[in-house]
């Protein structure tokens, strides 16, 4: 009788908690959406500022474009560092820090008088801020939206589709207030990311009492120590140890720091990840009631070595290489055609209005196809990376056929097909990574993967430009993108064997 009574209220509580957790998941998606809109918007409207800077501050185009390059490449290259910060401080403080960096960078840039100053204030500060925001938002989305990650990710990414509104808005602001006033107002707009970052409630640990009560009925003391997974008596501890040894994750149980609730952040991934993987029947892991309890000092019953500051384990993992290879090439395949689409339209004799029409169509198609792809992937009819590979192959085929499009209708058809397949595979990048490595190590994997993708993103546009200069035609850019898109899924064919290798290694 006694075990039953506590179970009913706890089940009721977890249901209420699940509802709260569901609500907060939409908050996280909204924040990620906002991050996409503002980050991508700023990156895209940099061209407008470029013109304003060139007129007032002077300097050559090359020097000025450094600012833009630093800003967009740091977004990726800063990811490993940000991953460390996230794991130490938790996602919410990191996100608020990122928002502060971005707003501060904008405000500082209003006082800019020279290009090196702008490189630091606009390039470095904004780039690092974007990296912080992006990493925190992406991982938080992965942690919160377990069941429908692909759709939530696609929904958040659709923010990029709204960025076309930022360009005329920025133009208007510059006409009214000049670039300094515009940057001031931008700083204010970026500050809006602070309250939306606050929506990133730290994920709470799974109440250990639940597995304990399922198995062990005599642990009434467990209620006082929600943080100790094994705090209940011996019944649950062997199970916890079993779980721990089954996985080679070196992540720590908890960091014995007398902080407040945010400490549950780094501890949570491990507590969450393991029970989640081992008990598929568990429903809601992030129950807010448990989150509130972490104000009690954490008992240091199990002091494990805390996670190394910079976790290089992804670099030893073949799955990581599989993912990064695909990520790198798919990013190259994504950026290059968009860069040269308008130019190609122009060389074929179409007006620049037609070109911008193409870009608009591409943007809308991409957003729609992202949503569709995310929704489709969430049904889990097949492994997500199979869909990812299919989209990549189709995208590659489209790009290889791209040079055949010489009239406006054909080019439009190419654009629609290309945008649709790009949207398809882009939406699945994060879910595929989560499928491959799980959520608790997502920070370090995402950090390093973004780092390598960043080097590709840096080299992509100049490479495409060089290709054009060398061959004097844009056809090669499309062939190159097609080749990249076809090379990128090759690594996924090795995924089953890599998993087998990992399991063998774990069982040794």
């Amino acid at each position, binding site marked *: 009788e006694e075990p039953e009574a506590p179970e009913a209220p706890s089940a009721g509580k977890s249901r209420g908690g699940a509802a709260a957790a569901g609500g907060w998941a939409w908050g996280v998606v909204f924040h990620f959406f906002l991050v996409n809109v503002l980050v991508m918007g700023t990156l895209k409207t940099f061209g407008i500022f470029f013109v304003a800077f060139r007129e007032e501050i002077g300097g050559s185009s090359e020097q000025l474009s450094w600012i833009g390059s630093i800003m967009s490449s740091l977004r990726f290259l800063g990811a490993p560092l940000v991953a460390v910060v996230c794991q130490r401080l938790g996602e919410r403080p990191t996100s608020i820090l990122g928002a502060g960096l971005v707003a501060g960078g904008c405000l500082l840039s209003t006082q800019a008088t020279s290009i090196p100053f702008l490189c630091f204030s606009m390039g470095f500060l904004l780039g690092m801020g974007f990296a912080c925001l992006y990493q925190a938002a992406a991982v938080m989305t992965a942690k919160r939206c377990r069941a429908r990650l692909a759709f939530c990710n696609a929904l958040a990414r659709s923010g990029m589709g709204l960025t076309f509104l930022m360009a005329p808005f920025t133009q208007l602001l510059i006409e009214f207030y000049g670039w300094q*006033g515009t940057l*001031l*107002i931008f700083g204010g707009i970026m500050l809006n990311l602070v309250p939306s970052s606050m929506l990133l409630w730290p994920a709470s640990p799974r109440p250990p009492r639940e597995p304990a009560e399922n198995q062990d009925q005599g642990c009434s003391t467990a209620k006082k120590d929600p943080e100790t997974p094994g705090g209940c008596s011996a019944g649950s501890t062997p199970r916890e140890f079993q779980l721990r040894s089954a996985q080679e994750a070196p992540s720590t149980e908890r960091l014995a720091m007398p902080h407040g609730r945010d400490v549950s952040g780094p501890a949570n991934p491990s507590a969450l990840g393991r029970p989640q993987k081992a008990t598929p029947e568990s429903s809601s892991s992030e129950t*807010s009631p448990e989150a509130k309890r972490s104000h009690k000092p954490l008992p240091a019953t199990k002091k494990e070595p805390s996670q190394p500051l910079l976790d290089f384990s992804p670099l030893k993992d073949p799955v990581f290489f599989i993912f990064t290879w695909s990520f790198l090439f798919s990013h190259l395949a994504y950026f290059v055609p968009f860069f040269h689409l308008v130019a190609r339209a122009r060389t074929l004799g179409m007006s620049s209005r037609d070109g911008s029409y193409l870009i608009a169509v591409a943007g809308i198609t991409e957003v729609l196809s992202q949503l569709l792809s995310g929704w489709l992937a969430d049904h889990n009819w097949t492994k997500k990376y199979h869909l990812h590979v299919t989209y990549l192959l189709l995208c590659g085929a489209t790009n290889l056929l791209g040079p055949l499009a010489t009239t406006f209708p054909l080019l439009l058809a190419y654009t629609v097909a290309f945008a649709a397949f790009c949207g398809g595979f882009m939406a699945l990048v994060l879910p595929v990574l989560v499928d491959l490595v799980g959520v608790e190590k997502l920070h370090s994997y995402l950090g390093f993967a973004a780092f390598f993708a960043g080097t590709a993103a840096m080299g992509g546009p100049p490479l495409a430009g060089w290709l054009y200069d060398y061959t004097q035609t844009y056809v090669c850019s499309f062939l190159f993108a097609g080749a990249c898109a076809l090379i990128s899924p090759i690594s996924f064919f090795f995924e089953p064997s890599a998993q087998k290798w990992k399991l063998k290694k774990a069982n040794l």
Partner: protein
Amino acid sequence: GVSGTALQKNVSVGNPTKVELTCKLDDNSKLKNPQVTWKRGNETISHSSKTQNSWTVQLTISDGSQLGSYSCILKGEVEVSATFHLQVPKIDGKERPIITYEGDLAVMVCKTEYAPMAWTWYRTNGTELVAINLSSHTNKFRIKRQSANVNRLEILKLTKKDIGVYWCEAAFRLGSSKRSFELRVLSILAPLKPFIAIVAEVVILVTTIALYEVYSKRKEEEGEREFDQIEQL
């Protein structure tokens, strides 16, 4: 068609010089052996040289009155013509109004294709153009010569009184060309108002979310305490 021209062409002439204008007929044109006349307005000019498909006229421009539009007219089955506009070099500069803030510095840059003899800057006073005299306003204006064909006016310590239209004039031997710039001076408060409004909105949102967190945390704690009591019974 007539090659070498887009049926209109601008030729910049700054100093007295000899100019050669040529009209050339495409090989695949329908016109065969047309009648060619060179005209300036209603006046006909005799052409100086002729080959099978091209007709050239040589002009000596020695003063401003000789500038203008010269056209070659080819008459045959169809009539084609091309016009050359001989003008003093135009000035390149910023089209949009220049927006600056009080106390800041405004920069206006004028650039020409060929170097003029002299550069002058003016300010509109009502309907008149008043030349900017450096000696009388040493702390206000600075004129810098970046190169022979690029000239730059800097206006320091801007105030609302400096709002208006400024002109730069490039004087060539054959004439002069002018360009205007509109200067707008805003007070620092202008963009600050929307900024403060946005910051206020952010602060309100942050406080609301923080308060909600504290409130729901307290509610959970109370619920927990009740729950624990039930268990202990």
